[in-house]
């Protein structure tokens, strides 16, 4: 474990690889889980996967209905008994599909926004004699009279297509319905039940083929829910302003600390360090009142003005770095009659690119991830940043769409990861050169 020049010998390297690999698995597990979940359907995020395949990717089902192959979902298990059989019937009159699932008629369910547009569409779909429907305990079919009693109370004439009896070999029977990728844009599981426009069938388990199902449609669905473009724009706006501000102000102030010997420099530096010890809760309230008195609550200004005035951590970082630069170069430039600012611009900055990059990266990360600031200072939803938009996913009374939330989270984290990959080289080197001497 020493940084000598020779590469580590293989009998050391192997166990080291092993341990690092195990650790890496633990570190990557949550992220992997986040990405894996973002491609699954909602109901499969709510149970523990039984094997590795289920953990990585969602399960789908495929079967043939009336000669065509469909991707289906298992809507529910059909358990007919000899006393309570189920039937597949063909109605001879027209009625709305919702009458089979709701105890009141179309007039009522149109008056109330309890049902959203999709649900209403499903309920309004007319069931015509070309379609087959499933008659069960809730909508029983009287074989003798040839009449089906709908849940809403109405009775319609119907003819029997098949009676469903318990299968001889004891297999489970499933009601399967056609599945479309757009189904994933839903807050609840099972909201496609009762959609009569889709192909459906009652099949024994053996006829249903289990496959894998990945749903990239989760991403557009998630982004649609939060006002993605607007939030992204707001976040980028803030990031741009804060990064420029932090970089410029920290460079200037750190230069002052490092190269200009003015009276009171030591004390000021110690005060700067001390400010890092102040817990945020101490100043959160008076700071809010300060912005209120200036009248800037509800604007972006409280979130980025501070960056233009300096940041103790970055000042400290850059100062340490500047102290490590060769002094003679600066003296030579001074002799040539440079003013301090010119020195800064022409000599110090070109030498400090890695450290500056690090400050920029840290500030970008910080602003991108910041959630408390926007929460307190922004009031209008058109101003919200990505971190606030993410919060809005978990609704009041529960019912979090995990699959969409994970998709949104991945989108939220991805730019940071990509940015990191591009700047990693400068990053590692620059940390080495800041020479943290404590």
């Amino acid at each position: 474990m020493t940084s000598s020049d020779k590469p580590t010998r293989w009998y050391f390297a192997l166990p080291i690889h092993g341990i690092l690999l195990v650790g890496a698995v633990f570190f990557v597990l949550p992220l992997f889980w986040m990405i894996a979940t973002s491609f699954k359907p909602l109901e499969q995020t709510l149970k523990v996967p039984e094997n590795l395949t289920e953990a990585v990717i969602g399960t789908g089902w495929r079967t043939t209905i009336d000669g065509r192959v469909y991707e289906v979902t298992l809507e529910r298990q059909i358990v007919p008994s000899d006393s309570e059989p189920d039937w597949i019937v063909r109605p001879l009159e027209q009625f709305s599909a919702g009458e089979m699932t709701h105890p009141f008629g179309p007039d009522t369910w149109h008056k109330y926004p309890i049902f959203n547009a999709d649900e209403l569409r499903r309920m309004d779909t007319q069931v015509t004699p070309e379609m087959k429907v499933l008659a069960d305990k809730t909508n029983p079919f009287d074989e003798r009279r040839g009449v089906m009693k709908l849940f809403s109370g109405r009775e319609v004439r119907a003819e029997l297509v098949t009676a469903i009896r318990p299968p001889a070999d004891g297999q489970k029977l499933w009601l399967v319905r056609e599945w479309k990728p757009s189904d994933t844009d839903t807050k609840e599981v099972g909201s496609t039940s009762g959609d009569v426009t889709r192909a459906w069938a009652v099949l024994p388990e053996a006829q249903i083929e289990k496959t894998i199902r990945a749903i990239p449609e989760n991403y557009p669905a998630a982004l649609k829910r939060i006002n993605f473009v607007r939030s992204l724009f707001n976040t980028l706006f803030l990031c741009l302003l804060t990064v420029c501000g932090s970089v410029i102000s920290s460079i200037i102030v750190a230069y002052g600390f490092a190269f200009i010997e003015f009276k009171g420099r030591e004390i000021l530096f110690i005060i700067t360090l001390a400010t890092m010890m102040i817990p945020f809760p101490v100043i959160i309230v008076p700071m809010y009142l300060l912005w209120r008195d200036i009248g800037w609550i509800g604007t972006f200004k409280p979130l980025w003005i501070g960056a233009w005035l300096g940041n103790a951590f970055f000042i400290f970082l850059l100062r340490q770095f500047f102290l490590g630069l060769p002094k003679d170069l600066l003296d030579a430039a001074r002799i040539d009659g440079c003013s301090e600012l010119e020195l800064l611009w022409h000599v110090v900055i070109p030498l400090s690119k890695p450290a500056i990059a690090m400050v920029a990266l840290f500030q970008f990360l910080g602003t991108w991830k910041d959630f408390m600031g926007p929460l307190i200072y922004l009031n209008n939803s058109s101003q919200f940043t990505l971190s606030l938009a993410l919060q809005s996913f978990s609704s009041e009374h529960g019912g979090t769409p995990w699959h969409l939330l994970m998709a949104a989270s991945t989108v939220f984290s991805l730019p940071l990861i990509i940015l990191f990959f591009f700047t990693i080289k400068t990053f590692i080197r620059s940390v080495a050169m800041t020479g943290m001497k404590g």
Partner: protein
Amino acid sequence: MEKSPENPPAQSARPLWTAIPIRPVHIALAAIIAAVVLVAAYERRPSLKDDFDPARDAEFASTWDKRVHIAYWEKWGSFEREACQAMVDAFNRSQDEVFVHYINASQVDRKTMLAIMGGDPPDVAGLWATNVPPFAEAGGLMELDGFMAKSGLSKDRYTPNYLKLGTYNDKTCALPTTPASVALFYNKEHFRAKAAELRAAGLNPDRPPRTTQEIDRYAAVLNEFGKDGKPVKMGFLPTEPGWFNWTWGFYFGGRLFDEENGRITADDPRNVDALVWVKRYAERYGREKLLQFRAGFGNFDSPQNAFIDGTVSMEMQGVWFSNFVRRHRPHMEFGVAPFPTAEGVPGPVSLVDADVITIPKGCPHPEEAWRFVEFSQRDGLAIICRLQGKHMPIKEPPPNFRDGHPNLELDVFEQVAASPYAFIQPRTAVWREYQHDLGTAFDHVWNWPVPEDELAGLSEDERATKVDALCRAEIERTLKDITARIQARLDKRRSVDELRRENASQSVETRP
């Protein structure tokens, strides 16, 4: 000329400002600062009038500019939000002078408080009844009595408890929009499936339990366990849904706050009885097993809700719940009845709560805000209550309110809301802390360890007595603690307010 760092160019004789040479760098820096100042100045707070969405607001285009635009912050999501939007749309359509922007805000109470502090509150804010005392006491809400008198809106039309929720110090600061009351939801399918066992235990499967003792007995029959004793189905769990944990005392006849004397009464012996009853449920089946069982409950607004998917057979829930059940499992056979009280306690007892509508102090358009609030109390109430599937907070709903109302169980909720034994949350400024402490106490009591060997091998009744003997002292101590602490806080608050009043009468007040 040779210049060394020790001797800057000889400029000691010239004034200071010419000593600093202007170089391109300086100009660049100045330009950057100027740009920043411009950006800062350019930013305007977004105005409501600019928020015109052609798809949504086309019908108002002609009158858009001459209307006064006001902001209405509300908390709802899902269909409740659409119901409120319908009320807002109805108001916007009914006249030409005001346009209400319905803005969805999660944590609307905190946002509104911060906005009032920041001097930029919305014109209308939809809060929870629990927010009224702290907001009103801090002077954050406009008093509506004057407005009501001017518009001829009588206080008598309201069911008393709902008006009381919006009142603080005898001043009306908030009016109810959608009311709530709670009742017992029970799964008729389970009752039917276990009819034989219920009858064998001497219980009637065709009706729900009427006392807390009966709940215990029904639940005992309805429970189902898997192998290794883990619960698969529970007849009743007092921790579901967990929003009413502070209310159990009321069903045993206890009280939390004595309003006339201003005393906290958490340690009322009947509250202790209630918690002992709750504790029995914790110990009956093993706390850890229950912990795991409960962790698997699905979210409220989903078909995996514990009651909806049949995991729990009986639950205390509110008037909104019928709608959620009907959405997720339309075929479910469930019943609603007034929640049972302990034996000897008059009933029906129910928590009465409401969402309220307020006009924050310092809002830009109070008159226009009142026009909307008034509408919400006249025609608006019927719209929003019906669309949210709730009953109305007034004594006489309009005659066609019930026509095809999606909530088939409205009778029960109206009955319990109007009951003289219905209770509201204590009207005191320290209620938030009090409520938090009560919640913690509930958890503490629920989790308080009772050694399993003490209860092993006992029958149901023996267990009940044993739990009582072991836990009563601890429960009493916990509740006494809370009483002392909250009482101290209340007294302190009163004395500080006294001090404030004295100071105010001596000097002229100005806000910071």
